[in-house]
């Protein structure tokens, strides 16, 4: 049997048909244009792998002139933004744990006096090193910074103090992840990323599938309430979410030896709120999407800023303000702070409840939109 000859007319017919279909599916077309634009904006403008202006607290126990010089030099470096003054070590550690600041610069008591005596007094920099990428460059710049800082102060008779090792000693305490192991940051974060992707996608598909296959008409002709359908559809996936969390936690512990300082049950409670938020997004998407493909595209459209702007792939603090503002609206951003906070910093409810509340608010809004848009009829 001979295969029919390649026909240009048939070939053209297929092309024309594809174009017509592409034009009909406005959303898909919009996404095809929108996704590259989004990527351009995010990668081009939002992402910065050399984060600057990191929030820093200062703890000054010595008010001599040389301490001030050093602080001024640090502030001028553009890596550090002094956002608060703390007066005790405890306050400093709380600020680090909550994630309010990335660094605490500590000028110890008698700093000026010891400097003049030539004792090489320490400048203590405590860093929240959960994400080594966020702190690396800033810490790296400190050494040369300090050497240069006092050059003006130590002139003439004091010049000898500059010495060979420099006039002061830089002591860096990298908290929470002292060895700067990237996995410690990535693996817990992955939990949030995986949940975001699968939970939204799966609920989106579960509901649009009914519509696409025509079974929605059957379902709606039965005496049901929207809550029964929506919650009933969601529950199995919450279970799936917990299976994913368990797998990631086991891998984090046994494979990557990620420290688990805080309470795992607390984390599991936070996971519930986070899963709910994502399922709510899925429901909302499914009420907007006409078919499964559209639901998938919407998921992707949401997922992209989620991984790029949440602080998962790139340091949150390195982004411009507008990108941080967008990031603050995403549940993943807050969940990452929670999961890293609990596992690496040992945070308790005290430190995470604000983040948790923000996810809950997001979930409530998304759910309200989704339920409102979920029609009990076909029109």
């Amino acid at each position, binding site marked *: 049997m001979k295969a029919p000859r390649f026909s240009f007319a048939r070939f053209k017919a297929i092309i024309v048909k594809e174009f017509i279909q592409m034009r009909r599916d406005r959303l898909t077309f919009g996404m095809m244009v929108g996704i590259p634009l989004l990527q351009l904006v995010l990668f081009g403008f939002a992402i910065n792998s050399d984060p600057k202006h990191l929030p820093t607290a200062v703890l000054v126990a010595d008010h001599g002139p040389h301490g001030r010089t050093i602080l001024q030099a640090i502030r001028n470096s553009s890596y550090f933004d002094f956002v608060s003054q703390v007066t005790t070590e405890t306050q400093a550690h709380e600020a680090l744990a909550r994630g309010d600041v990335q660094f605490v610069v500590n000028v110890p008591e008698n700093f000026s006096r010891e400097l003049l005596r030539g004792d090489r007094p320490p400048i203590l920099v405590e860093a929240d090193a959960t994400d080594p990428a966020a702190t690396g460059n800033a810490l790296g710049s400190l050494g040369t910074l300090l050497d240069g800082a006092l050059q003006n102060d130590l002139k003439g008779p004091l010049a000898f103090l500059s010495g060979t090792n420099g006039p002061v000693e830089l002591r860096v305490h990298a908290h929470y992840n002292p060895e700067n192991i990237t996995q410690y940051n990535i693996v817990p974060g992955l939990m949030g990323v995986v949940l975001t992707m699968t939970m939204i996608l799966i609920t989106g598909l579960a509901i649009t599938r009914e519509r696409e296959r*025509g079974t929605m008409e059957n379902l709606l002709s039965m005496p049901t309430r929207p809550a029964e359908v929506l919650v009933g559809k969601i529950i199995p996936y919450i279970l799936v979410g917990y299976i994913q969390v368990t797998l990631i936690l086991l891998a984090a512990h046994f494979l990557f030896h990620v420290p688990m300082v805080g309470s795992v049950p607390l984390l599991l409670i936070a996971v519930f709120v986070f899963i709910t938020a994502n399922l709510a997004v899925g429901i909302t998407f499914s009420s907007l999407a006409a078919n499964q493909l559209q639901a998938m595209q919407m998921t992707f459209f949401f997922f992209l800023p989620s991984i790029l702007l949440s602080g998962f792939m790139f340091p949150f603090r390195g982004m411009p303000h507008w990108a941080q503002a967008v990031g603050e609206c995403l549940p993943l951003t807050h969940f990452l702070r929670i999961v890293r906070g609990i596992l690496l910093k040992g945070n308790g409810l005290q430190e995470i409840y604000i983040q948790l509340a923000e996810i809950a608010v997001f979930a409530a809004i998304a759910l309200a939109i989704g339920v409102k848009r979920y029609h009990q009829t*076909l*029109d």
Partner: protein
Amino acid sequence: MNTELAIDVCGMTKRFGQLTAVDHIDLQVRAGEICGFLGPNGSGKTTFIRMLCGLLRPDDGSGTCLGKDVIRDSEAIKREVGYMTQRFSFWEDLSIVENLDFIARMYDVKNRRDAVHQSLERLGLTERRKQLAGQLSGGWKQRLALAACLIHNPKLLLLDEPTAGVDPKARREFWEEIHHLAGEGLTFLIATHYMDEAERCHRLAFILRSKLLVHGTVDEVIEQARLTTWEVAGPNLLQVAEQIRGRAGVEQATAFGNLLHVSGTNAAELEQAIAPFRTEQHKWSQVEPGLEDVFIHMMERPKQEVSA
């Protein structure tokens, strides 16, 4: 019981943008009655049925279904109505028994297991109950859908082309079952395009271009059309049909197997028109018009006549 109305709606209207899919339709169906719902494609049958069971919100109209308000009590109506969709709408990735079981649960059927079991028996699908619904042949899907919408013992059945693609034997069994159930007091509204099925209905409602055209028993419907029909037997019927069409008084000439039906509303004109064709070759006889003659006649009525 028979005087009670299972469906009593009036002025039902549904618009989709510019298009009025159902235009002020009034319909009464008595309890225990089988009402055939006829009309050409796109005339609004499915849309009307969807409004009755609360799947579409009417833009206008009011009335009751099983004594309950069609607008406000659609939840209560859903509980007592069985709706069979025109397109297969069961879960293709569930097996037959899983589908039936799911439906039974949704309606809170008592003795669910027995109900599902009986339903399978009646379908004759007990052996294949584990088969996925998506793998059933078209006709069997249809039969499964029927069984499923009967499982909660509804009082009113809205069936949208329930026998499309079903073989003649199964169709006959299906109609016997329907008459049996109607005898027990169930009410049926059945959309169909089959004339033999229409003839099995107690009453017919015919809609055309979104409006209800006639409503009555088969005889009444035929009567109302005031159609005269001649039956022709003999050779070359196709040629006869072509020549006779378009002559004054001949409104339609349709082949029925080896016979030709020539019909018109004006008996005298029709007789004149056919006179030249009444040759020895062909056997002409005046017959009672059938339902199909009447329907084709109605479908071909010009637009202004319908909207008048």
